[in-house]
């Protein structure tokens, strides 16, 4: 669908949504908590398109996302990203899938020698590579067509996520046991890559938000010591370097998955004045916002979550009940609060469930602290 097939974003809505979105960052009073269901390919389903179409057409993808933001009354920002960024720049093969985000099918690092010989691309080379070429096509579209919904991000992932986009997860996990020093090397290189990638976005657009954190490195797959060594420590070093290189200032720690055993480490991760922490699960359960606020509320903006499984397969009443509990626990968090989903809104989630999430924020998310 070309740009003229989309209706313009309602300016009254945009003004109000912008005001709600500003509050968590700068404490400017507004009515209620903003909702960010992390809408990506889910937007395509609202236009009777699929995930494959979404990711093959980054300019259309962000138009769909911006339209979905207005439809659902959520964070007014046009995003485009997927988890398996950065593999293709180093020779991996990316497969566009009909009903899921793109996935890597063939990774460039296959042996220990490959790790030693692997060279991180410079900022200049990354700008010319497939990941940022596509990413910038999406961001340029937002900047040109929806300037008030433009807030550039750099999808970094954490060091383990980058590492497993370069080498297979089976190999990386085997090396963690047999040759952990090799994974250290890989994570150092992943950290260097993160700095170069962020610098590229900063040079093109100025201020931007880096999405980092720990997804593969979660409690279901790794123990605390492994998460500390291969994720928390190298990610922290990389974030420091990114900030020192002037490539921030936004830092979004996306701790997807179960972080019962390691969430406390992240309390001391490097933070800028625009830092947000989101934690998916506490064991098998959604991470309680009360616990999130207790540990991070006096440090940074908190992102409380509703279970994406519930958004995907639950009823609107179940979504509403969990969202109510989370938003009441978080709305007056001292340094700001956003209500959202534990991870990306599932592609085929029922729209009524996203609506239930937003309704809960409207019904129970009114600020009392202002």
């Amino acid at each position, binding site marked *: 669908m070309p740009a003229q097939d989309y209706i313009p974003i309602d300016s009254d809505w945009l003004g109000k949504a912008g005001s709600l979105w500003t509050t968590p960052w700068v404490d400017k009073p507004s009515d209620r908590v903003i909702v960010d269901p992390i809408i990506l390919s889910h937007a395509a389903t609202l236009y009777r398109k699929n995930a494959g179409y979404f990711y093959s057409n980054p300019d259309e993808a962000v138009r769909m996302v911006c339209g979905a933001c207005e439809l659902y009354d959520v964070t007014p920002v046009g995003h485009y990203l997927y988890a398996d960024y950065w593999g293709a720049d180093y020779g991996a093969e990316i497969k566009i899938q009909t009903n899921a985000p793109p996935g890597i099918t063939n990774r460039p690092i296959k042996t220990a020698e490959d790790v030693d010989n692997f060279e991180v691309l410079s900022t200049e080379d990354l700008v010319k590579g497939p990941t940022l070429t596509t990413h910038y096509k999406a961001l340029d579209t937002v900047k040109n067509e929806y300037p008030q919904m433009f807030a550039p991000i750099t999808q970094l992932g954490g060091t383990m996520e980058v590492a497993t986009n370069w080498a297979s997860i089976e190999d990386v996990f085997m090396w963690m046991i047999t040759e952990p020093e090799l994974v250290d090397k890989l994570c150092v290189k992943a950290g260097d890559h993160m700095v170069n990638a962020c610098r590229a976005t900063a040079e093109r657009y100025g201020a931007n938000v880096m999405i980092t954190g720990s997804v593969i490195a979660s409690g279901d797959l790794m123990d605390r010591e492994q998460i500390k060594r291969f994720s928390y420590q190298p990610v922290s070093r990389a974030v420091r370097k990114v900030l020192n290189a002037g490539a921030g200032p936004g830092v979004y720690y996306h701790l997807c998955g179960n972080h019962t055993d390691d969430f406390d480490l992240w309390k001391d991760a490097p*933070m800028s004045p625009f830092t947000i922490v989101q934690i998916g699960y506490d064991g098998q359960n959604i991470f309680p916002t009360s616990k999130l606020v207790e540990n991070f509320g006096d440090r940074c903006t908190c992102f409380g979550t509703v279970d994406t499984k519930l958004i995907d397969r639950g009823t609107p009443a179940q979504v509403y009940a969990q969202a109510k509990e989370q938003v009441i626990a978080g709305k007056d968090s001292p340094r700001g609060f956003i209500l959202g989903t534990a991870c990306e809104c599932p592609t085929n989630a029922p729209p009524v469930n996203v609506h239930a999430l937003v309704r809960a924020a409207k019904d129970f998310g009114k600020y009392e602290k202002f």
Partner: protein
Amino acid sequence: MDIKITEQADNLLKDNGVRKEEILDIIKNSESSGQKLKSKDGNTCIAKGASENLTIYAVYSASELLDVYTHKMNILGITGGEIKPVEYDDASDWICAKCGEVALERNVDMSYLGVTRPGPGLVCAKCGEMYVSAGMAKSTLKTAEAILEEKRA
């Protein structure tokens, strides 16, 4: 201590709205109190002068002013309230000249226009003195201040 101010340094002073006498005073006070950061090779120092609205830093060698930077965000204290051990290598390249301790890279709470948020700082665990590096002040904090000025207006 006779600090030379080159034309380049003079331009930096002008860009940051800092007077020559002011920066020389900051250096003089730091030298007499010992309250400054020193590079590990001992060749470079960072002195800090804080007023209510602006924190000014001088980076200097024994003979020359090398850099000047400022931030408006006011450092309040350690984020989370106290300096506890963290589980990553937080040692910076700087040493607190007064205590001889390596300055730690830690989050510090900073306030500006009524908003308090964390920021990346350099902290002496012994005396508790807090600084911000040139890289952080010139990029991260400058951008943060601009956003706060726009959004809090």
